[in-house]
């Protein structure tokens, strides 16, 4: 029996304006439990691909499915974890790690009134998983870039997601923290079995952890194991050419 894929894009094209094509003829199938890196040059359509996967945009042509349902009206949205590109808090309030992570329980818990004990337990568990227990009540702005990204990953985990999508999670993070973040994602993938889509303009940090690498430049130009990737393409600057 064929399992329903977590993500299925079938001959998808998309543009933000009539006549424009940011993505063209994209066909992609991601199975449940896969850890996939999606890479490509800036402006190559990665973030648009993410928005189509998550149902935030509808394809101009083709179809986008999440767990077998049309992505734009997916009924189990609370099972989606998303770490947006360059996430930063909007205002002046010094949100703590715990407050940020608690925000991730909202969709899975109740919308109105105080959180339940179960919510608080899952928040504490998510903070522990990313190794921030000792900084749980510290304002996020006092943490390093890498630690802040960990906090936002914990926020996504707090909702107990089936699919975790991270858009450029290493932007503004030093090389050591990038390695550490990639190792964390590998461990979470092994422990939780969650499907992870890691989107970045370069894939060096996660290359040894992911089972599959997808390169996007308007369409999919490579889809396979990182080991199958021609040597020259391991230089991320190559795909800009």
């Amino acid at each position, binding site marked *: 029996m064929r399992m329903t894929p977590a993500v299925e894009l079938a001959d998808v094209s998309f543009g933000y304006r009539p006549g424009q094509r940011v993505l063209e003829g994209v066909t992609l199938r991601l199975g449940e439990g896969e850890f996939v890196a999606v890479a490509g040059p800036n402006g190559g359509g990665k973030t648009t691909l993410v928005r189509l996967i*998550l149902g*935030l945009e509808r394809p101009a042509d083709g179809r986008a499915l999440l767990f077998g349902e049309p992505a734009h009206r997916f009924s189990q*949205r*609370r099972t*989606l*974890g*998303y*770490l*947006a590109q360059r*996430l930063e*808090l*909007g*205002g*002046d*309030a*010094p*949100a*703590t790690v715990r*407050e*940020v992570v*608690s*925000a*991730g329980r*909202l*969709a*899975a818990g109740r*919308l*109105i*009134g*105080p*959180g339940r004990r179960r919510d608080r337990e899952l928040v504490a568990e998510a903070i522990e998983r990313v190794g921030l227990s000792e900084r749980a*009540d510290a*304002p996020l702005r006092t943490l390093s870039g890498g630690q802040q990204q960990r906090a*936002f990953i914990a*926020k*996504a985990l707090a*909702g107990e997601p089936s699919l975790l*999508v991270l858009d450029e999670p290493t932007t503004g993070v030093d090389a050591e923290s990038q390695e550490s973040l990639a190792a964390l994602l590998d461990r979470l993938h092994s422990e939780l079995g969650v499907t992870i889509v890691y989107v970045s303009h370069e894939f060096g940090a996660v290359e040894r952890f992911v089972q599959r690498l997808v390169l996007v430049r308007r369409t999919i130009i490579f889809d396979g194991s990182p080991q199958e990737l021609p040597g020259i393409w391991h230089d991320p600057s190559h795909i800009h050419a």
Partner: protein
Amino acid sequence: MRLALGAGIVIGVLAPAVGFFLVQRRQSLIGDGIGHVAFAGVAAGILLDVSPVLTALIAAVLGGVVIEVLRSRGGTAGDQALALVFYTGIAVGVVLVSTAGALNVDLFQYLFGSILTVTRTDLVLIAALGAVGLATVGLLYRALAAVVVDEEGARVAGVPIGGLNIAVAALAAVTVALSMRVVGILLVAALMVLPVSAAGRIAWSMRSTFVLAMGIGLGSALIGLTISYYADLPPGGTIVLVAAAVFGVAVAVSAARGR
């Protein structure tokens, strides 16, 4: 004076409680825009000889919802549409007030606040709607805070962002309409913003910012009204100057702590 203090207590707490979510989402001036629309409501009330507070409330809520819908569209067109709502609101107000022949000192009580004009009926309305507003903020705090932290993530997870944003706009509108008797339409937005900005400088979490902001708002309203009463000064301006002074102190404290 006692009626004004009663109203000041409600508004001092409600304005920063609602303003907290506007400031965190970088929408500090939305309250100002709603005030422009509320002015048209006041003018309609004067012209039709019905309670200006009631007509301002209706106009502000409608204006707040329209502003939120336009804002959510984003882009340049959305920005220009917001400006259109702001200026149309004040223009309609001026024309209606002029038509009613009320372009005089009576209008000042709505623009700048007036202690002496707060009636028992006003206080009952302010207390009742203020309690509803605060209860709504309390019930929605977790959801609204989650949207502040990561609106896009919440949208992906299926949180009804549109409904929550409309709720904030409606709460802001109610706050503007209720506050105009004490602070005045032109200054109500300051009471929604300054206490929150001050609290953010010295607080240690979102929740503590929220609570401190309400404390600063309450203190500013009570101290400002008292000074206004004894020094015969306009209450709106005095309250806002007290809040601005607290903001200055908070900035100094924050600088001294090296944050």
